[in-house]
């Protein structure tokens, strides 16, 4: 099948993602609108005429960027309110799938907003540097200019608090003014917190040292508090209404040397500071987020009973060697996996959802996400854990201890992700790489139960399941599941419902030789399943063209839980093999984000 040209590929992409694009465009549009509005207000309005006399355009830049900062600080908390997102996903279950796609990209949006905050913070800080500098200069300028006169307004005690220039004395340095004002101090603290959050959230740090990212990111509390009280000092001042009525700048600004001198001359202008605005923007998301965390705490107090823990390794004889290896290599090349089965009251889930798990005996504050591998039809719920860092390794070690009691586990969730949509498609292609198979395990189990109970409402007619794994030991996890699925499909005469292929990418000549020798056996030597294991990686072009040929008029959902490179190739294949005719075969790509 010829690849369509670039315009049509773009068109296809747009058709799938139009809501996300619309959302992003609206967000950008609002940013621009807020910036321009505030800018024009401070640049043109007469209320700030005298303020501009000292500060120039830097005032408008500072206030405009402040306005956008308020907006973005509000927006940044919303994508991480997972309960809200799950709720939206639930209420939208009758909506078509493109409407729910933006909910999958919440973390991308969170990062975009964060970058925007950084950009506007830079503008804001630079503009205020100029502002403070100019305030300072006009305080010292002994040239009798309007700016100088304005700066000295505070010295008239009988008029009270109607100063304009926050720097009151020629001896006050900008540094002193910054650190003794609420705005300056909170500004420096908030920006420092922002920088620390950003540097610890860089992909490299986040992926490899997750705990560091997790703890440092809680500095957002500092940022939010500082943002809330940033405007308390009322440093940004404009002329009062009363004063404008009495002596409007258009009439009086030129005669500044004669203010209050004679009966007929203009009165001195009076200024008043802005009350803080930020809290109005951020109050609602803060309340929402506090509710989220409270919900998590409340759920964590509920009782979780661990019924079974099982450790999968290659084989008993090899365990000793594994432990030795793991001590030497520190567990990065060896992956002992654990599976836990917990029973929790009042817990209901959908396929492919995930939960947050906390183990107070290991770390009081850390919550780590794990996909549920059990089906909703089961009485218990289970997760599979791969040892991939401090916390997971400690967790597995804690469970391995023979004589100590079971550690307590707290659970928050379940939260919905994209796998819930699998049953909405007639044909589903599920691709799991390594531990990325976990959401699909849940789906396959659910299918098993549905067929057991003769659930005929299932929209899905055919499932293609690809599992790509590096080592043979990994297949032990779901051997049983795939085995029982194979049997059940045979019994029901639906052998063509589930079409699965296993790929072993970390093979050597021994394994290949062994497999070649046992070519004639009915079951695979490595897994014991009827489906033979393939070696190497799947050739996606072949697979996709085969599926497109087999289902020429269907909508096919492609679900991936795996690395980014694989996502790229699958996405390309989806675009390439989707027909230009919307009535013919269409591939929709969905990726899990963890």
């Amino acid at each position, binding site marked *: 099948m010829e690849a369509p040209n670039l315009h049509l590929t773009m068109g296809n992409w747009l058709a799938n993602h139009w809501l996300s694009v619309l959302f992003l465009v609206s967000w950008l549009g609002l940013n621009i609108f807020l910036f321009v509005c505030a800018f024009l207000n401070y640049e043109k309005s007469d209320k700030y005429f005298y303020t501009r006399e000292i500060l120039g355009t830097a005032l408008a830049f500072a206030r405009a960027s402040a306005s956008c900062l308020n907006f973005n600080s509000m927006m940044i908390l919303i994508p991480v309110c997972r309960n809200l997102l799950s709720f939206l996903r639930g209420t939208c279950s009758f909506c078509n799938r493109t409407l729910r796609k933006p909910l999958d990209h919440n973390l991308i949006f969170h990062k975009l907003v964060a970058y925007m905050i950084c950009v506007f913070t830079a503008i804001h800080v*630079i503009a205020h540097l*100029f502002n403070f*500098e100019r305030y300072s200069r006009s305080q010292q300028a002994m040239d009798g200019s309007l700016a100088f006169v304005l700066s000295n307004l505070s010295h008239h005690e009988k008029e009270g608090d109607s100063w304009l220039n926050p720097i009151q004395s020629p001896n006050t340095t900008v*540094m002193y003014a910054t650190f003794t004002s609420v705005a300056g101090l909170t500004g420096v603290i908030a920006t*420092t917190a922002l920088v620390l959050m950003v540097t610890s959230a860089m992909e490299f740090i986040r992926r490899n*040292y997750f705990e560091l990212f997790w703890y440092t990111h809680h500095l957002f509390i500092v940022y939010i508090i500082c943002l809330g009280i940033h405007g308390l000092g009322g440093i940004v001042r404009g002329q009062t209404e009363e004063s404008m009525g009495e002596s409007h700048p258009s009439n009086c600004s030129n005669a500044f040397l004669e203010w209050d001198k004679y009966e007929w001359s203009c009165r001195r202008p009076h200024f008043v500071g802005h009350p803080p605005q930020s809290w109005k923007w951020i109050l609602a998301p803060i309340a929402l987020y506090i509710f989220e965390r409270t919900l998590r705490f409340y759920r964590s107090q509920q009782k979780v009973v661990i019924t079974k823990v099982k450790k999968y390794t290659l084989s008993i004889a090899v365990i000793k060697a594994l432990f030795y290896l793991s001590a030497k290599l520190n567990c*990065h090349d060896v992956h002992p996996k654990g599976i836990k089965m917990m029973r929790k009251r009042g817990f209901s889930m959908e396929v492919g959802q995930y939960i947050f798990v906390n183990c107070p005996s290991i770390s009081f504050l850390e919550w780590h996400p794990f996909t549920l591998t059990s089906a909703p039809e089961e009485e218990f719920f289970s997760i599979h854990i791969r040892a991939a860092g401090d916390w997971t390794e400690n967790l597995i070690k804690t469970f391995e201890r023979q004589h100590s009691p079971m550690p307590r586990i707290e659970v928050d969730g379940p939260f919905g992700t994209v796998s819930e949509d699998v049953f909405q498609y007639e044909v589903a292609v599920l691709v799991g790489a390594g531990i990325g198979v976990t959401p699909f395990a849940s789906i396959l189990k659910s299918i098993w139960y549905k067929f057991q109970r003769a659930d005929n409402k299932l929209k899905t007619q055919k499932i293609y399941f690809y599992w790509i794994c590096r080592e043979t030991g990994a297949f032990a996890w779901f051997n049983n599941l795939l085995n029982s699925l194979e049997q059940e499909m045979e019994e029901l005469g639906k052998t063509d419902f589930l079409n699965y292929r296993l790929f072993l990418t970390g093979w050597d000549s021994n394994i290949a030789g062994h497999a070649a020798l046992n070519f004639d056996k009915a079951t695979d030597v490595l897994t014991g399943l009827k489906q033979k294991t393939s070696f190497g990686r799947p050739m996606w072009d072949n697979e996709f063209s085969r599926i497109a040929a087999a289902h020429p008029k269907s909508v096919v959902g492609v679900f991936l839980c795996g690395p980014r490179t694989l996502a790229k190739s699958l996405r390309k294949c989806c675009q390439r093999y989707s027909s230009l005719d919307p009535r013919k075969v269409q591939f929709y790509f969905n990726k899990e984000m963890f």
Partner: protein
Amino acid sequence: MGQIEWAMWANEQALASGLILITGGIVATAGRFTQWYFGAYSMYPSTGDQEGVHSAAGVLICLLEYPRGKRKKGSTMERCGQKYLTTVVKLFGPLTRNYYVRAVLHFLLSVPAGFLLATILGTVCLVIASVIYLLAAIRGEQWIPIEPKPKERPQVGGTIKQPPTNPPPRPPVEVRKKPSVDEEEATRAGGPQVNPIPVTDEVV
């Protein structure tokens, strides 16, 4: 938190601080900000050089911190184009390898920037980076350059242990066609291999 390599975070933080320092220096120079000394009642008019010093310090920090060090375990993602700077930074040996030196260097570079409002943010961030480097140094971390992996040249014939001792299996004589006289002569005449049995091309 036992497996955290603090130096990796300190590296990101120092890089960010360097950038902030450069920006602060540029802003102060562009705005011709006056410089004040605490407690002094006189004003020192600024020249462009003073703020430029902070930008230069920022550039130095960025150059030093750009090449990422190698992680103790696992693979390290290089920054784009960092191998050129890695060779330069490697040249300084223990000065760049040791994190105590870096901690002290960053602290010293941050002090003069603390006197100027435009660069105070750079100071604060750089001091934090310095503290994290100190923590990394106390835990015995070191900067290890990421060496480019030597390209494995495919060994031609390296996997051939021994040439086969038996000729490949041939179909029985009856199935084979009788070779023409010319071919027989050609095979007998030359070539590195002399076939004991004449070989014909069989298309299955």
